[in-house]
């Protein structure tokens, strides 16, 4: 049981957290033909956009209502109207996803009201879904923006279904949290399809931000789940939610359509994947394919090979709640000690992180804790690079953003295979660090006044 505390500092130093509205836009990027729109000043969009482009190395669609000082004070109806019309005329979107920001929430713009008026005034917009989610910057974090937006998509875009209606036993809804990469989604799709099931991912970043070269160049998202497919998600037999952040969307789905859900808080590690595969076998009525029996064996072997290096490591981890819970639990199960854990926002999973204390704080906190507790493995997003170079400990980049290394969209952590590759990567990082920085010398074990050194470098 971890105690969850919140940093008392007035000044956040080296933030771990990113803002809620761009988490919302990120969710909209998993829809086909979508244009995410932030209702705020142009910087609100431009900062988020730059971050996504640096992470994915892809063109990313994202627009702004370009609120000026005057418009902000007088209210943004005209800006929202113009933005929607301009996007509609120029990009022919299948959906426009709108998130509010700190500026427009401080003023208190009634965007739902704006949208009603805009629809009355411009009947040509009738067929374009306009989904709005309130996501002020001064509350919550990136993951919360995703959570609220995904839930809102279900509420607005899924057609209601009678609880007793016949369902397609092969159809499965998958509601992934924002901690999963496009690569993770592709891996899950393969696994689910191997059980003869037909998954619908909402949102589906694998379709839009996996880096594929599209047939047609569009100014909106180049793939993802279509609005038409979302509408029919109520016909599925099951909903699989991944990450506690997706409980809200799964419950909304159940409430609206009666589709039961199963929440998998983790999909990294042996036991969570055993549960996942067993569940797929159960709902599909099919035996587990030989492929996954082999993959399970490979993961078990990878754990045997890597535990020498991962076991006993003192981990400092900074990540949003679901990613923190997933990775730290897996490493705990591999014998690592979760010595420092920092996160961005409240979540029910935090108290179950296998450590003494989880701090809602920043990367300065993480760096100080890692130093004080002699951590020798750092996991966080790319902004941890400065801390890592000061701490001089191996650094594994996980989460968003990852702007200083390539292939962020394809980094895997789910499934037997994803976990296998992840533990190899981590162990190799540790081995490389030992070779580079901790080679023994004739002096290494010479006793000094401080007595016997209890932790000699490992020699494997």
């Amino acid at each position, binding site marked *: 049981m971890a105690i969850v505390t919140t940093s008392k*500092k*007035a*000044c*956040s*130093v*080296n*933030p771990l*957290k*990113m*803002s809620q*509205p*761009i988490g919302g836009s990120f969710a909209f990027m998993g829809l086909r033909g979508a244009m995410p729109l932030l209702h705020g*000043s*142009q*910087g*609100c969009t*431009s*900062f*988020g*956009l730059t*971050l996504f482009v*640096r992470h994915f190395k892809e*063109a990313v669609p994202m*627009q*702004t*209502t*370009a*609120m*000026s*000082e005057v*418009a*902000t*004070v007088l209210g943004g109806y005209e800006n929202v109207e*113009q*933005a*929607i*019309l*301009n*996007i509609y*005329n*120029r990009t022919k979107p299948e959906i426009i996803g709108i998130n509010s*920001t*700190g*500026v427009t929430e*401080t003023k208190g713009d009634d965007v739902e009201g704006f949208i009603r008026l805009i629809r009355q005034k411009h009947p040509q917009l009738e067929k374009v879904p306009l989904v709005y989610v309130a996501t*002020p*910057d*001064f*509350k919550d*974090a990136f993951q919360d923006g995703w959570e609220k937006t995904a839930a809102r998509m279900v509420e607005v875009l899924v057609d209601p279904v009678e609880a007793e209606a016949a369902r397609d036993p092969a159809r499965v809804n998958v509601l992934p949290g924002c901690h999963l990469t496009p690569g993770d989604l592709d891996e899950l799709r393969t696994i689910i399809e191997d059980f003869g099931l037909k998954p619908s991912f909402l949102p589906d970043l694998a379709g839009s931000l996996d880096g594929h*070269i*599209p*047939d*047609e*160049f569009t100014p909106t998202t180049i793939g993802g789940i279509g609005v038409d497919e979302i509408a029919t998600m109520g016909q599925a037999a099951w909903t699989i939610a991944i990450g506690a952040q997706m409980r809200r969307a799964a419950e909304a789905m159940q409430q609206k359509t009666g589709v039961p859900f199963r929440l998998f808080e983790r999909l990294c590690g042996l036991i969570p994947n055993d549960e996942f595969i067993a569940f797929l076998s159960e709902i599909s009525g099919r035996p587990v394919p030989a492929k996954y029996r082999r993959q399970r064996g490979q993961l078990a072997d990878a754990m045997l090979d890597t535990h020498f290096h991962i076991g006993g490591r003192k981990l400092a981890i900074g990540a949003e709640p679901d990613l923190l819970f997933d990775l730290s639990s897996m490493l705990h199960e591999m014998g690592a000690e979760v010595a420092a854990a920092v996160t961005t926002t409240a979540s029910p999973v935090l108290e179950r992180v296998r450590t003494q204390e989880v701090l809602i704080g920043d990367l*300065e906190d993480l760096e100080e804790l890692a130093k004080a507790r002699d951590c020798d493995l750092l996991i966080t997003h790319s*902004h941890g*690079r*400065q801390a890592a170079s000061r701490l001089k400990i191996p650094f594994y980049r996980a989460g968003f953003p990852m*702007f200083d290394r390539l292939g962020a969209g394809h980094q895997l952590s789910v499934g037997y295979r994803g976990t296998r590759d992840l533990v190899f990567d981590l162990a190799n990082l540790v081995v490389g660090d030992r070779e580079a920085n901790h080679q023994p010398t004739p002096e290494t074990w010479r006793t000094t006044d401080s007595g016997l050194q209890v932790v000699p470098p490992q020699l494997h």
Partner: protein
Amino acid sequence: MSSLSATIQDVFNEPGCGKNANKTEAERKKGCTKQLQPGGAAGGCAFDGAKIALQPFTDVAHLVHGPIACEGNSWDNRGSASSGSDLWRRSFTTDMNETDIVFGGEKRLYKAIKEVIEKYDPPAIFVYQTCVPAMIGDDINAVCKAAATKFGKPVIPVNSPGFVGPKNLGNKLAGEALLEHVIGTEEPDYTTPYDINIIGEYNLSGEFWQVKPLLDELGIRILSCISGDGKYRELAYSHRAKAAMMVCSKAMINVARKMEERYGIPYFEGSFYGIQDSSDSLREIARLLIERGAPAELMDRTEAVIAREETKAWAAIERFKPRFKDKKVLLITGGVKSWSVVAALQEAGLEIVGTSVKKSTKEDKERIKELMGQDAHMIEDMTPREMYKMLKDARADIMLSGGKSQFVALKAAMPWLDINQERCHAYMGYIGMVKLMEEIEKALYNPMWAQLRRPAPWDEAGMNWQAKAIAQMDAQAAEIAADPLLAEATRRAKKICHCKTVDLGSIEDAIAAHGLSTVNGVKEHTSASSGCGACKGRIEDILVAQPGPILQAAE
């Protein structure tokens, strides 16, 4: 202390800028940047601009007062290099929460300043205002003043909340903050006749260090660089420089001009991109210093260094000539920065087949013609399809552009090189040009391209997107060629004003019907150019191409 709106009006009045000085008073009040288009805008806000301009001061703590978005989404995003402190790369923000919005964030800001000083003890703190605290009325000037008095340390308010305008305005507001609060507040230990300021240089990828050794060799001392690899104290005594170079952009022109007015420091606008420009800039620095009392022999030494470096650089570029024979470059960039690069590209034997004129002024276009010949291909806007066709028809082999068109080019399987500020290679000075040639060569001759342009084995010939796109374009072209009516309709349907969706036909009709001869006339009758104003140049071209009505009107 002037109010923010007064400061903004002040920076809109820029006698140092030719473009600005030619405007009417009413035009000037609107500022030098385009009106923003909701749903059609790109680019950063004024806060972004202020932060970009000042962040490279390496030993300063940059504290952002606002909710998490402003700093949390953007920190550590610039590749400026530091020779000393890494404090500038740490991020400080008040991360305002709901309670702060309700009760005001001034107390949190004050406490934050205190924490930063206690933990990091920087020579100064820059405090950046953002939209939300500006809306709720947090007075950062007052907080900074109180904190400065209490802690005995400069705490500089940078009043440039995002919603007052675009990035470019933020650059200037940042400059105003320096002029008002920092420059002239300290004295250097000693001065020399060789002291200069470099203004508007951010030392991206450490590129200024490609030039600095030459200045060092000449005994020219950079008293202060604003702001790349800059230090607070150097900035504070920068008013003692003998001369200044404003690097290449108008971003900080207000700083250069006002330092000339207040402290008599003459400046010139120069660039270290390209061989000729580098030489010109070195000469100009020497000339200004000699004018201000440096010994005249400085010029002889400068000429000697220039001659040596140019010989070396041209010799190095010479070896690329056979590799670049018959290779064609497409140059897409908004900025002036590229002109100086053009000469070097041409010298290396590359043919420049086209350049973007989307953001160019009339003078820019003249300059392009001068450099590339009358029939230079000027591109307004280019779709990925057209780009691929250029490649396919062997009309271009490589594209040089800013980061934004990167994905379009790469996905069209076209070799591409970044020549804007996000790039990770340094291209300054004489060495930089050689480096640029190396990069172009690497990109051009990478064997990967041939593989990527091959269709997948299961694709029927002509069924991949490239082939389909070309077929489609060819079909359209053939159809148009076969049908003069369609050709005329297509020509007339060309969008001129994207904001107000006005096509060429409507503008021509209006010109003919009303005998229009000015852009304003066209604006009145068609509302073209009443949005962002970017199509002004296009409309001017249309007016020039319509001799009939204009002549009549003139007579």
